[in-house]
Each structure stands twice: as C-alpha cells, then as structure tokens.
C-alpha cells in the first residue's frame, strides 16, 4: 500500500515535470517564431516565464513537494509559490500577447473571439476571480478537503491545478499586462485586491487558531504566519504594479493639467 502510493506519487511528479517542460518549450518556441516576424520579444518576459516555471517546479516536483505531504509549513511554501508567486511571474511574462503574435491572423481572431465570449468574460471578471481564488482556499483549509488531498493523489492534482489556475486568473484580473477585453477601473480592482488580501489574512489567522484536520498545532501556527506574511509580500508587488499602472494612466495629458493654468 505504502509502496504503490510512492510509485503513484513519482508518476505524478513525472507528469508535472513533462507539463512544465512543455510549457517552457512552447513559450520559448513562441519567442523564436515571433522574433522572426516582428521586433524582438523583450528578454525579461522570457526570464519571467522561466522563473514562473521554476517556481512551479519547485512547488510540485522538488523534495519540498514530497515534504509538503507530511509537513504543513512545507505545504504552505509550496502553496505560496504555486498559487501566488508563479502566477504573478507568468502574468508579467504576457503569454497571451506572445501567443497572439505567433498565430496567423485567422487563428488570432478566433482566439480573441473566444476571449471575448460570455463564458470567458464571466470567468475573468475580478469578482469571479477573487471568489475562485479565496473561496477555494477557504474550502481547502476549513473543510476536510485538506485531508482528502493527502489521501487521494487525484484530489491532490485537482487542488494543485485549481490553486495555480485561480491564482493566475486572479492576478490577470487585477493587473493588466495582456490585452483585456473588458477593462475595469483601477479603483474597482484596488478594492477587490484589498478584499482578497483581507480574506487571505483572515484565513491565515484562522488556520493559526484552528489547525486543519491532521495538522499539529505548532505546524499550523508556523504555516499560518507564513501564509499571512508571504501573502503580504506577494500582494505588495501586486499593489505596487496596480498603483503604478494607475499612476501612468492618470498622467496629466494637457499642458493646463501640468500645473500652469489650473483653475
């Protein structure tokens, strides 16, 4: 029993590795194709995508991933990498822009049509993204889902996928790097980011006080604090980027606005 669980785990890690490697190769291929047709793709975006893939690899396929099955603090490090830092790095690498540049006009049009579809608009709405992201975390840590994640490999895979995808969706809904079909005002996004950050902080302290089933108190306390401050650190980057975009968008456009003849 113990042995087959181990083999299963290795198989899943191999699957993760193949997926991540494919993701990296696809992006780099895209960069090569795009560079042939248009001006050079900024190298820092490729670096950001690579770092994002590395974060995911660290969370899913390293010794940390094995530890995270038995240690809540390791689990929380993986959670922060997979659900927050990797999505931020990857959103900043503008994969959709790269994809649109790489495709021919007809396919690019089809893709934008898909992105403008009602379903996608609903999915990428900031409120949906916050609920999927923070709501998912509440389900994971306040029900017996956390236990189930370690009992069943399949549940584990689904939760990892949700954590990353919801994190990506949320980040992309808050800071606009790729083209966005329906834009929301910076204030609207600022309020939702604050609410999400609050929800994350409240859950962290809740975990500190009420350890999920099967987690020793000490690990829950350390993990809760790590979630609280780690979340703050990544969210600080989101806040700075959002404010900077806001600052740039609200620059004075007319000479009068520059302070000469305001009345």
């Amino acid at each position, binding site marked *: 029993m113990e042995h087959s669980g181990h083999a299963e785990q290795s198989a899943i890690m191999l699957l993760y590795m193949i997926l991540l490697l494919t993701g990296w190769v696809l992006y780099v291929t895209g960069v090569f194709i795009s560079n042939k047709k248009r001006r050079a793709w900024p190298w820092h975006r490729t670096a950001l995508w690579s770092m994002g893939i590395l974060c995911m690899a660290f969370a899913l396929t390293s010794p940390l991933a094995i530890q995270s099955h038995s240690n809540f603090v390791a689990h929380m490090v993986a959670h922060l990498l997979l659900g927050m830092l990797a999505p931020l790095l990857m959103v900043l690498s503008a994969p959709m822009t790269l994809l649109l540049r790489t495709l021919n006009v007809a396919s690019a049009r089809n893709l934008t049509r898909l992105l403008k579809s009602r379903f996608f608009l609903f999915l990428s709405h900031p409120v949906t993204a916050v609920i999927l992201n923070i709501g998912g975390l509440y389900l994971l840590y306040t029900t017996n889902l956390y236990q189930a994640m370690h009992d069943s490999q399949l549940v584990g895979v689904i939760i990892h996928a949700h954590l990353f995808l919801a994190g990506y969706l949320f980040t992309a809904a808050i800071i606009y790097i790729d083209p966005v079909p329906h834009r929301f005002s910076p204030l609207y996004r600022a309020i939702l980011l604050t609410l999400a*950050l609050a929800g994350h902080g*409240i859950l962290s302290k809740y975990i500190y006080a009420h350890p999920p089933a099967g987690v020793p108190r000490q690990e829950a306390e350390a993990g809760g604090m790590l979630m609280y401050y780690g979340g703050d650190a990544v969210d*600080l980057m989101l806040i700075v980027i959002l404010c900077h975009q806001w600052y740039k968008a609200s620059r004075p456009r007319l000479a009068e606005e520059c*302070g000469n003849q*305001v009345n």
Partner: protein
Amino acid sequence: MAITNGNSIDHTTAKNRVVYSSFNLWSGILFGIGFAAFIDEAVFHQILHWHHFYDKSTTDIGLVSDGIFHAFSWFATVGSLFMYANLRRRKGLWPKRWIGGAFLGAGAFQLYDGLIQHKLMKLHQIRYGVDIFMYDLVWNIIALVFMAIGIYLLMKTRKTSNKIKTER
C-alpha cells in the same frame, strides 16, 4: 521635464494647492493610516514582540477587522505614495496639508486600534505580563495628540485656502 512657467511660480503653486486641496488631505490621511499600521507591525510585532499574532481571546469580528485593516493599510501605504508623486507631478503638493492629513490618519488608526481592536474586539493586548492600564492610557493619549496636531494643521491650511479663493 516639467513644463516651466515664465511668470510667478508661487502664485501657480498656491492656486494648484487649492485645486488639489482634498487630494493632499486624502493622500496624507492614507499615508498616516499606512504608516501607523506599519509601525505597529514592525515595532510592536516584530522588534519588541509585545503584540501577539493571535490571542486566545480574539473574537471572530476582531479577526475580520484585523484582516480588513491590515489589507487596507498595506494598500494605503503604497497608494498614498503614488498619490504624493501625482501631486508633485501636477505641482499641487501642499506639504503642510499633507502632513496634517498624515497626523490625523495615523492618530485615528491608532485610536481605532487602541480602543476598538485591542479592547472591544480583544485582538491582542499592547503587551503581555504587565499591568496593561498605563500602556493603554499612553497609547490612546498619543493617538489623540496626533489627531489634534493633524486637525490643527488642517484648519490652518483651510484658512489659507479660503483666503486664496476669495482673492481670485
């Protein structure tokens, strides 16, 4: 490069200050809130270890209030600094009014933290294992003093602003 104006710059600045008067006030208030929260976290939680991350008597509403204020102050710190940059960019920065706002914001946050969060919601106490009364007293008096300084500066700048408005 900033666009320069040939004639009296002081007059322009004075006018801009009036135009961006409430923007100065809010940027200052938000910075004050953020700064007070930052000091609370850095000094009392991390350096002195007086405040506790969680206290067994913490009420649920205390947890929610802490989460919202923590997130809000984190955003306010960054946002207010970008607002400050915006004021400078638009040549509308009014330091006295901005600082007045900052004192008011910091004092108000400290008072909320000291009375509502520490006492009513029992989030955590200022310090453990000591007679807490003096700590609470000093904490809240400092908050009131900050608020008084802020209100004084804001009233002074408001007077100036009214004077400039009537001159025009």
